[in-house]
């Protein structure tokens, strides 16, 4: 098993995507097939941008096993008022700064759900949000 751990700073758009980029390099080295790699890093990148856009700080924990990749993002931040609303395409609470970067269209969480085999979101208002994303390798669902 390979484990990776990254810190993410809220508001740091210059470095948003660094962790996703590093994970992509590792998956390439491990010969994970390109389509699976794309699904994993697209969902991770969406989630990483969400932490930068909405939270104060966060941590990304990646576990690469022989049969699955488990990624957990734990952030300290305002949390999500309604996860049901946040899961609707087009719903967004992003700031103008986030929109200037090309995000904040309310497509992030639905796209994460589309690109992962299992996806769980747990949020407490005023505390933070934890996201768990699982992708099975070799169609081993």
């Amino acid at each position, binding site marked *: 098993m390979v484990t990776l751990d990254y810190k993410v700073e809220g508001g740091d758009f210059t470095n948003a995507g660094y962790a996703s*980029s590093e994970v992509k390099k590792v998956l390439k080295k491990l010969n994970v097939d390109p389509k699976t790699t*794309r699904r994993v890093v697209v969902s991770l990148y969406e989630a990483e*941008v969400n932490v930068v856009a909405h939270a104060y700080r966060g941590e990304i924990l990646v576990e690469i096993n022989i049969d699955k990749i488990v990624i957990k993002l734990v952030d300290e931040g305002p949390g999500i008022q309604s996860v049901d609303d946040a899961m609707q395409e087009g719903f967004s609470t992003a700031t103008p700064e986030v929109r200037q*970067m090309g995000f904040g*269209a309310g*497509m992030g969480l639905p796209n994460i759900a*589309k690109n992962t085999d299992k996806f769980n979101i747990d949020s407490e208002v005023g505390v933070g949000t934890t996201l768990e994303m699982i992708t099975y390798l070799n169609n081993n669902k």
Partner: protein
Amino acid sequence: MNISTIVDLTSGKEITNFDSSEIKIDFAMASDLMSDVLTLDTENTMLITGLANIQTIRTAEMSDVHCIVIARNKRSTPEMIELANESGIVIIESQHAMYKLSGVLYNKGIKEIY
């Protein structure tokens, strides 16, 4: 379509400096919305955009987009060029607007995705 043909058709300038001769492009998407670009699941894809910031390159990296044409004379920052060179993503800067770039490339056989 190879990169040098895209440079000619867009009256553009390739500003990344790695050898891009092996890259072939079949599909294009024109968007300033990176969330939209992240829904792509095609190979050999290019992006035509008016958005010139570091997240444009990160989005291309995650989506396996190998060529970005930046429209309307917007300039790439040194950080964007460095990251694109590292990631094997070609940046072409063009004076033309997204509408014209899309039309010219579509007319020469670059296909739409959606």
